């Protein structure tokens, strides 16, 4: 019996990692396009990149890193059987994620307000590669935002299960795997941040 559980634990761990690999490649397609269009339109990308709000980007980076820390700590906590702490940490993670999304909302609104959105009149007039930068930016951060949302949902479910006692020191794969997913969301952002906010 113990052996069977051990097997299932290891299986679940392998499974979630394989899933994370597919996520990496999903975003990989967008990074591929970014790389190719950056190499075709370095100047236009640089001009477009300067329109980005570094403040929003940095704030969001810090938020995600911190939330990642909370998620990692919640795993330690559950391993040590500190259920109250787990709940607090998960709550903190979720709050960070929410603030991230609110930030994102304001950032997008401000950009759209300035006339940067796909198919906008401003782009039809501007240099030819600029629109590509913003299209990629919206698609990438949009897809990422969607993942953040999914992560919030997932962590909420996990938190409820922890409270119900379904997740505990003896069986916490679900928590650990959700944390892994959350770290991946962070990881993707770690690359989005320099590519869209910094290098240009």
């Amino acid at each position, binding site marked *: 019996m113990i052996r069977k559980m051990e097997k299932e634990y290891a299986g679940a761990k392998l499974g979630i990692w394989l899933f994370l690999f597919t996520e990496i490649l999903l975003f990989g397609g967008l990074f591929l396009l970014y790389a190719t269009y950056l190499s075709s339109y370095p100047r236009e990308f640089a001009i477009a990149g300067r329109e980005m709000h570094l403040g929003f980007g940095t704030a969001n980076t810090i938020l995600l890193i911190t939330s990642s820390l909370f998620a990692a700590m919640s795993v330690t906590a559950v391993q040590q059987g500190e259920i109250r702490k787990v709940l607090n940490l998960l709550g903190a993670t979720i709050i960070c994620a929410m603030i991230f999304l609110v930030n994102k909302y304001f950032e997008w609104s401000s950009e759209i307000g300035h006339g940067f959105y796909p198919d906008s009149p401003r782009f039809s007039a501007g240099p030819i590669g600029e629109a*590509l930068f913003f299209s990629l930016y919206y698609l990438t951060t949009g897809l990422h935002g969607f993942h953040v949302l999914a992560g919030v949902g997932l962590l909420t479910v996990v938190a409820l299960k922890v409270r119900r006692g379904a997740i505990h020191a003896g069986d916490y794969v679900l928590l650990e795997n959700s944390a892994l997913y959350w770290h991946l969301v962070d990881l993707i952002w770690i690359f989005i941040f320099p590519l869209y906010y910094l290098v240009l």
Partner: protein
Amino acid sequence: MNSSNHPTLPLTSFWNDTGKCGVSAWVFSTDHKRIGLLYLYSVLISFLVAVLIGLLLKIELMAPGRTIMGPVTYNALFTVHGVLMIFLFIIPGFPGVFGNLVMPIQIGASDVAFPRLNLLSWWLYITGALTIVLSLFTGGGPPDTGWTFYVPFSVRTGTNVSLAVIGVFIVGFSSILTGINFVTTIHRLRADGMAWGRLPLFVWSIYATAWIQILATPVLGITLLLVVAERLLGTGLFDPSRGGDPIMFQHLFWIYSHPAVYIMILPGMGIVSEIFPVFARKPIFGYKMIAFSSLAIAGAGSLVWAHHMFTSGISDMAVLVFSFLTFVVAIPSAIKVFNWVSTLYKGSISLEAPMLFALSFIMLFSIGGLTGLVQGAAATNIHIHDTQFVVGHFHYVIFGGAGFAFFSAMHYWLPKFFGRTYSEKPAMISWGLMFAGFNLTYFPMIILGMKGMPRRYYDYLPEFAPLNLISTIGSWILAAGLAIMMINLFMGLLKGRPFGSNPWGGATLEWTTPSPPPTENFDEEPVVTHGPYDFNRAGVP
């Protein structure tokens, strides 16, 4: 409980040993065998629809000019034919049906690693399939882009591309989950004694396939999403007037779709590697090389995608690299072929239906693969790219290769799961008709391509007429064979002779359990003591 839907089966098989036999006990079952059969039915429906469309295409091409339909219909039909065949039949077919039915038993497991995820995969498949079907009847009508969805055409056309593409996306998601499930299963759930060196070659091929599903499919996913975004939001990423590059779409598309052709063929190769030793009563020749070459095909196959784009305007450097790698990926296939043929040497060969299909697999796949070499060489590709030659090539590898392997597996393994079997004679006749009809249908296409008839042509010049007519007639013979085969299998599996636990004399684990197997597959967890082709110890784990 109620035995009405399978009259005389022993009460100990997965058909009824849980006591749950209603429809909902099937569509919500997490048993890998039931899910495998669900896949079988759904995949076969797609196949039969698509195959009938293929027949219509051939009738239209019987003579130049309009024969039975207009160009708009023709274009929609070949698109639907391609999409159904590729995304709803052959890609989900092997992993979904035989990967599910056989692979867990072959490694001595009682189920896959994530049974509920497995069920979700099937549901996603169904959702995606229904979405695709829905796209045919709503909006601007069935998509008319070809299964490749090339931009800018797919962005400009008024047909219902967005919905169809979303359907394909969902099916792709299902494929990813199956891949994850299988890799985990093969790593974690092998029975005691089932060392990597004792894995049946079918399992090796499913393993290699699953990796392609995991690593390549997400790229297709994002590509399709981009097409939708392009259509709905006007993101302009592939629109040249806004700096986008339509060739980038082709890169992304083929980064998935070339490896995908190995998703289609690798399990077929695995099946042939099972059938040859069993019907020649001899261990497979070069076990290690065959197992290794499956991984090599999966790996090297991910590096050759741009050979579909030699004329598109990619750089000459890219042509050089990708043409070279295309030839590299042919070598592991050659190794396999030589090892299979050597397995026959000094064996004791019985020519039953599975073996006949497997032998013809070798011939048809060789023709398909060798025509692939003609396409892989840069100079010759220029002439035959986008001609009927390509159509001939891929029907030879997909239908003659993967398809015949699928039929072979249906004859070899399905009786195991139904406990009853088909009659041998109609099986032989249907095989003969299909083999003859197949060559008559597709060889003319290869010649037509050499003569310069482009593909996706609704109408053609009179000089191409005779060969097209021959091809059309061939498709009727093929159709007759296929129909006989389907009827024979269908009747046999439901009402035919009982099928013992190991009539073929196989040495892999699925032949150590009863036919049909119980839900738990084995009465007690097997401990494997010998390799998969050690026929002296066939029948015991």
